[in-house]
């Protein structure tokens, strides 16, 4: 059965390792924080200027001056720090953030990603996404395998304006985990009960399938 958003978040949470500084994009990525193993040490960075984010505040304790990049009220954990935007992107551009998790409209087998603009539609902007994908060495995309019309979002080449080139390292969708290596998508894991064939049919890009593909364990 294909995963829901929470399932995708749970699977991505398995990629978070002990000692990682992690930047989470808006949407599914934000959910990842809820499913990280609690026996490892991880710190969450938000590009609007906070390191060491905690859970949402208790009702009545929210503070307009303490938000995340999604403009949500948050709390901080002991050891947290606040800083300006230039320093925040020094962390990102300088590769001090170990893992970036973000959503996408399209990803391509050359590692390209498109997630900020649909020509002819209102463009809201790239926010910090272009800095993140141009800098990070470990970029995981959280997305649905196909759009609402059933068209694949896992492509040979992106059709939408790019956010970054050759940068995506892994994609976790409702159907599969894909690794981007040598300009190809490699199928690593299947969602529980989803067949390789179903994944291939939902994938426009060439999919490298080697040996037995295990099911995810969530």
């Amino acid at each position: 059965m294909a995963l829901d958003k929470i399932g995708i978040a749970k699977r991505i949470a398995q990629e978070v390792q002990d000692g990682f500084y992690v930047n989470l994009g808006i949407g599914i990525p934000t959910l990842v924080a809820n499913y990280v193993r609690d026996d490892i040490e991880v710190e969450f960075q938000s590009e609007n200027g906070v390191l060491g984010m905690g859970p949402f505040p208790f009702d009545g304790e929210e503070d307009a001056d303490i938000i995340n990049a999604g403009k949500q009220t948050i709390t901080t954990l002991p050891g947290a720090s606040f800083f300006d935007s230039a320093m925040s992107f020094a962390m990102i551009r300088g590769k001090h953030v170990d893992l970036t998790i973000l959503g996408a409209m399209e990803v391509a087998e050359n590692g390209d990603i498109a997630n900020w603009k649909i020509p002819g539609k209102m463009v809201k902007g790239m926010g910090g996404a272009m800095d993140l994908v141009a800098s990070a060495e470990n970029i995981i995309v959280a997305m649905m395998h196909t759009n609402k019309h059933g068209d694949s979002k896992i492509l040979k080449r992106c059709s939408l304006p790019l956010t970054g080139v050759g940068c995506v390292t892994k994609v976790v969708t409702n159907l599969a985990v894909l690794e981007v290596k040598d300009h190809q998508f490699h199928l690593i894991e299947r969602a529980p009960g989803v067949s390789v064939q179903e994944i291939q049919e939902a994938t426009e890009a060439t999919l490298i399938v080697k040996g037995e593909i295990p099911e995810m364990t969530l």
Partner: protein
Amino acid sequence: MINKKVNNVEEALVGVQSEMTFMLGGFGLCGIPENAISELVKLNVREITCISNNAGVDNFGLGLLLQNKQVKKMISSYVGENDEFERQMLSGELEVELTPQGTLAEKCRAAQAGFPAFYTPAGYGTEVAEGKETREFDGKMYVLEAAYKADFAFIKAWKGDAAGNLIFKGTSRNFNPNMCGAATITVAEVEEMVAVGVLDPDNVHVPGIFVQRIFQGEGYEKRIEQRTVRQKK
């Protein structure tokens, strides 16, 4: 101590004119110069260019300037959450320049620090790099981005003193420190003006040299865009 204190927002904005370029601190509605924005609406300066990470919401923040049709051009990284903005943009009334967020911060910092331009990897291979110089360093491609120029920078700080020293609270810091000194005149408004000598010299976020005018702000609303909470168990 060089005294930067002015009595009110009217004095702080002396010299503001139509067709000028302004930098405005803040991320979403967090840390925005509420008093300066209200005064810009009152002054009704037209055809202005605003450099600000976001464009406010329909009825607050920079949205107030948009509603009043004062803005010719917005330079931002993200401009959602604003119907009037969308209408003006799609109708062509409003010019919009979208810039990656880290590039936006650094273009301000470059102006502050006297750097004419810098190379950043952000946007390489995308529309953002179109028409810009690109260059390889150590096998990686970078885009040359120029420092911003602005006439006024409007800053919102938590506390400040007459010397112009500023400190910020939480994530309301964001772009504010990077915009200080990045424009010809930097105007800081503070929630609390403290006596000179109260701020710990080790913990001043922005030294007063970057600030030309400072005043005690009034009536801060500090609206929350996404009130997210959890329940006590």
